[in-house]
């Protein structure tokens, strides 16, 4: 890294991500609330609202989208519809993931899952619909629940809205994917540490990085991803401090220095 990128990296370490993230979340929650009013037939809108306005959601995809848009001087207002669309698509994939015929989860973020409350039929329809609310900017990745895909798409959408150049979009794409996968790998490692002895790699074997590679190798992968994401951002040097939020997402993916869920109020 060049001297200037070293300095911006250290600046990013001091960036108050918690305040930035929480204030954005308040706005995103309000936009989502407005985007899905309860109409007739009530039941379906309630099922949709239940999942997309759920407390405990981090709103990571919309936050990433807005940060990427603002990096290039794009307006936050212009980014909100797409940012909300990303969250809706995210919610839709979670609803379908939790279904009895899929992962069969009766709870999500500490609350009963959608189908537990509204029934499997409504949950399928609500998921189907949230897929659609997204509209033109959020298509093509619905079934791919993976964090990498979501991170990539969120960052790229933000850049596209702000009119970023092709090479900048590709840089965002690589950055977003790296951060998303990094977040998932670190999740796996943290989860593994929390598990009681003897319970290790019981359920997720083969499904998680730790299950496949073991903790040590997973930590190595995480370090590679971190370096890769930082390197991509170094290419945005000329945008100055506007890039700080994107740097601090990388740090956050690793250190989880605060709890976004609590911050949502």
């Amino acid at each position, binding site marked *: 890294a060049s001297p200037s990128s070293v300095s911006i990296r250290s600046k990013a370490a001091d960036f108050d991500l918690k305040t930035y993230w929480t204030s954005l979340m308040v706005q995103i929650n309000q936009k989502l609330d407005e985007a899905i009013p309860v*109409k007739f037939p009530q039941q379906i809108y309630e099922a949709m609202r239940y999942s997309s306005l759920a407390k405990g959601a981090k709103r990571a995809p919309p936050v990433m989208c807005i940060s990427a848009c603002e990096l290039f001087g794009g307006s936050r207002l212009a980014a909100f519809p797409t940012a909300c669309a990303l969250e809706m698509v995210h919610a839709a994939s979670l609803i379908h993931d939790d279904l009895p015929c899929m992962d069969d989860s009766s709870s999500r973020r500490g609350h009963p899952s959608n189908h537990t409350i509204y029934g499997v*039929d409504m949950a399928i329809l609500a998921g*189907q619909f949230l897929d659609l609310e997204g509209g033109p900017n959020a298509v093509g990745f619905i079934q791919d629940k993976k964090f990498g895909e979501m991170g990539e798409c969120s960052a790229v959408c933000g850049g596209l809205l702000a009119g970023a150049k092709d090479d900048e979009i590709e840089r965002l794409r690589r950055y977003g994917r790296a951060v998303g996968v990094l977040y998932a790998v670190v999740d796996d490692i943290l989860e593994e540490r929390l598990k009681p002895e003897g319970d290790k790699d019981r359920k997720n074997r083969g499904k998680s990085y730790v299950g496949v590679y073991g903790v040590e190798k997973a930590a190595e992968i995480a370090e590679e991803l971190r370096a890769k994401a930082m390197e991509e951002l170094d290419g945005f040097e000329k945008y100055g401090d506007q890039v700080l939020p994107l740097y601090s997402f990388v740090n956050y993916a690793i250190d989880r220095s605060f709890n976004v869920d609590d911050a949502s109020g």
Partner: protein
Amino acid sequence: ETIETEEKPVFDFKSYMIEKATRVNKALDDAVSLREPLKVHDAMRYSLLAGGKRVRPVLCLAACDLVGGTESMSMPAACAVEMIHTMSLIHDDLPCMDNDDLRRGKPTNHKVYGEDVAVLAGDALLAFAFEHIAVSTSGVSPARIVRAIGELAKSIGSEGLVAGQVVDINSEGLSDVGIERLEFIHLHKTAALLEGAVVLGAILGGGCDEDVEKLRKFARYIGLLFQVVDDILDVTKSSQELGKTAGKDLVADKVTYPKLMGIQKSKDFAEKLNRDAQDQLSGFDSRKSAPLIALANYIAHRQN
């Protein structure tokens, strides 16, 4: 001395449908090719390429043609509409919905691939439908493509298809379902996607707002017509004639037009809907509107 007996060319509906359906099938086969991950693509293709009359995509192509567009403008949208129609059938057949084992004489998607893959295959078709329009439409301005995508999303979301399904689910076993509620269900469950098909064709083909709205009305009339005729056939035809179980609505105690207004009045209503639909086309070039008129007549007079 040689008087040219110039006969008005008779529109050959059957060969028109066969030709268009063949082109649609080829386009669908190309669009959803078998690729990694194989299982979900295989499941998508199983239901998507299982036959069917392709009424929706042909409506889309015909509407585009009517307003002066070319096939390359509307074929991706036509395929998208069929992908979404297929998605709704796959999800409808699931055990938690209608729980059907057979569709068009073949085992339903979840019977072959399992429920989990069937849910995902439906989701993937839905997502891909929009991607396909966004990526593969050629010769149309970005503004019209975005407008078309918005229209399609609306027609199948909670203000469209999904709304119809929800109200339908909520109406099962109710004794006091009135004509208004019945119409809501059908306008959303059946007519919305037909409307989407026609309106998308008109938008992408370059139609002016007035033409788009005329075709939207046309589509709503034939959408409702489709359902009224379906209801009549269910009580007047045998299972053999229909190629599916007759009298299903009676057994399921479903509210239908014949039940609410009697068979004769239902037939009169169907005739009126067909006339109203065709009235919308009166301002267009009669040679170009022939396919849509024939489609309306086909929907009105079909025997199964």
